[in-house]
């Protein structure tokens, strides 16, 4: 009898717990749910967002921090199914034009006090579709070359003002010291459209290669692509760290910061991390140079921005727009500078940030970043006319899967499972198939 009573008690308690959980999950009016990634700038935004709540006592902020790929999947599901779980989403300039065309994003219309003209034009344009703005940039990045000044000095080398890829290869050969675990060059090798293919697409542009011709036929078996991949594979095999296929942005950051890389070509956002002695053992010896140029020399250039957008499924669009206007404003940059120091100011979005002498003093890499982002042109001309936009990606929905698939094939060349020719032929066939299936190509 006692046992029966206990069973009932357990069931009742359980029922109460579950019912309580349903009730507590009902979203309160005036609560904005913000989906974001976990990186330094976003963490600072979250910490300082109490200031926004103080200024808007009727708005409460609810944060959901997710790993980048999980965030993309969750937000896509949420928006596509119009669930309305998120009021503000953190997305990149790859997603913005695609999602805007799908009708998933609300047009952003900040008030006059926002100073839209202060946003760097290249960044602003990358968040615009059909003349309408669909997101506001939180921070932006392009690509630069990091190198170890001490290793260059020891080898009697000087980094030119505008290096070429031939020069980079020669420098890497000279400073590689494998017995002491110093590798001449570190590049992204981890397969993924946002990992190795972000770098390789950018490399291909300056080598005169491109993904598609005007009839959406892939051009991966072209000589320019072969030259691109030959340079990449031979450089990493000769002068790169072991296990390069496991190295993405973070792994290379760790390698460079712990003194194992001589040259690293990657996102400008690493500048702040490499310059911080708390995170970098080489903070005093890091040098900066523009991204190298290949035989073509021109072509679209890398531009990425983490931006804040409002999905159409949000029921609190006005409050959400007020929040993203606050988080991307000039006043917010000043607030970060006051509380966290100028070096923590979100980079790459506002001209006024780079006009502040305090910022230029705190971040010696600032002028390189500004120049890289100002001159970044993701819509720039490729060697032959192209039907798509984007520099380190192709701005079509299929690119996530195509890019990752080709990324895996490229990684196979690094691990000697395929030759460059085999990899490109295989990539050409798989892309052709994927585009036929999606109906983009015949």
């Amino acid at each position, binding site marked *: 009898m006692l*046992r029966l009573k206990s*069973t009932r008690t357990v069931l009742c308690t359980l029922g109460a*717990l579950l019912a309580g959980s349903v009730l507590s*999950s009902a979203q309160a009016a005036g609560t904005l749910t913000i989906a974001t990634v976990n990186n330094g700038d976003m963490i600072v935004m979250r910490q300082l967002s109490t200031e926004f709540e103080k200024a808007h006592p009727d708005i409460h902020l609810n944060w959901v921090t997710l790993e980048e790929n999980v965030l993309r999947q969750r937000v896509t599901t949420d928006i596509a199914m119009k669930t309305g779980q998120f009021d503000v989403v953190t997305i990149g300039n790859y997603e913005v034009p695609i999602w805007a065309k799908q009708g998933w994003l609300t047009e952003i219309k900040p008030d006059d006090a926002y100073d839209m003209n202060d946003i760097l034009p290249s960044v602003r344009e990358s968040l615009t579709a059909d003349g309408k703005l669909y997101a506001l940039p939180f921070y932006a990045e392009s690509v630069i070359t990091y190198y170890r000044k001490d290793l260059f000095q020891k080898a009697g080398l000087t980094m030119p003002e505008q290096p070429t890829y031939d020069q980079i290869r020669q420098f890497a050969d000279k400073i590689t010291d494998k017995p002491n*675990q110093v590798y001449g060059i570190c590049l992204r090798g981890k397969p993924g459209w946002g990992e190795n293919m972000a770098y390789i697409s950018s490399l291909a542009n300056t080598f005169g290669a491109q993904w598609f011709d005007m009839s959406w036929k892939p051009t991966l078996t072209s000589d320019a692509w072969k030259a691109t991949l030959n340079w990449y594979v031979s450089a990493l095999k000769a002068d790169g760290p072991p296990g390069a296929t496991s190295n993405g942005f*973070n792994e290379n950051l760790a*390698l460079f910061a*712990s003194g194992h890389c001589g040259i690293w070509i990657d996102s400008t956002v690493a500048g702040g*991390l490499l310059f911080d002695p708390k995170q970098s053992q080489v903070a005093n010896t890091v040098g900066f140079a523009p991204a190298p140029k290949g035989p073509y020399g021109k072509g679209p250039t890398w531009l990425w921005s983490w931006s804040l957008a409002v999905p159409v499924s949000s029921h609190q669009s006005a409050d959400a727009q007020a929040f993203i206007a606050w988080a991307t404003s000039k006043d917010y940059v000043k607030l970060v500078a006051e509380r966290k120091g100028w070096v923590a100011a979100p980079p790459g979005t506002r001209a006024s940030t780079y006009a502040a002498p305090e910022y230029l003093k705190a971040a010696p890499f600032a002028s390189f970043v500004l120049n890289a982002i100002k001159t970044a042109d993701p819509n720039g001309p490729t060697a032959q006319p192209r039907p798509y936009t984007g520099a380190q990606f192709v701005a079509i929905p299929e690119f996530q899967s195509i890019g990752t698939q080709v990324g895996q094939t490229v990684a196979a060349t690094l691990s000697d499972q395929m030759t460059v020719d085999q990899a490109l032929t295989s990539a050409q066939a798989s892309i052709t198939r994927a585009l036929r299936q999606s109906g983009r190509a015949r």
Partner: protein
Amino acid sequence: MALKTKTSTQIGVTILGWGIALWLFFPIFWMILTSFKSEVQAISTPPKLFFMPTLSSYAEVFERANYWHFALNTVIVSVGATAVAIALAVPAAYSMAFMPSKRTRGTLLWMLSTRMLPPVGVLVPIYILARNTHLLDTCTGLAIVDMLTNLPIIVWMLYTFFREVPAPILEAGRMDGATRWQEMTMVLLPLALPGIASTALLSLILCWNEAFWSLNLTSSHAAPLTAFIASFSSPEGLFFGKLSAASTLAVAPILVFGWISQKQLVRGLTFGAVK
């Protein structure tokens, strides 16, 4: 001679057992070790075994996220899903073990076959169902999915334990005038308690560590510890120390619980109900 061979075999088996145990435990050991390193130490090459420990990663984890909110959600979901699953599985396994029909075996196999489907295959329908029933981002929704996911295994395990209970004992109960309910709750359950306890513990561990549905069906209110861990993975920046600290905090309760109850778990899994 025979004794000598037996002793050396025992030593060999002991060494092999310890070797496998240490090999299996090494990732957890390394995770705990990394959680006490600074971010620079965490990424150092070659990896450091000896270093000055710091609690900075734990401090940052507690500063950035409300650990207790995630932990409470995990407890509610795991305990809730396990309790409901056991409550449903006991009568199911009881009827299959003591009143089998010609379709019992087929039903058991069919139930198990649902485990063979990759979860992502049913993500969209389950997401839509959860949305339409307002169960998205609720502990109830997640507990229901976890419960249904683990139910086939629980029924199978309980069925196996119940089959070991001699039918004459239940018959004796009936002879004394016990109803079906009394027979199940007052005769069968006490006899099969070690098996039920180990099944419940296994279900608890499976629910605690479940990540796919947690990440897809919850966002903030009902997010459990698996979502807490995922939030410390960073696309740009050093995060191994913080991620290790978050993972250590997430697995610590279930690890301790597992250690405390391992005797019961092993006994339940190996000895059966009445042996």
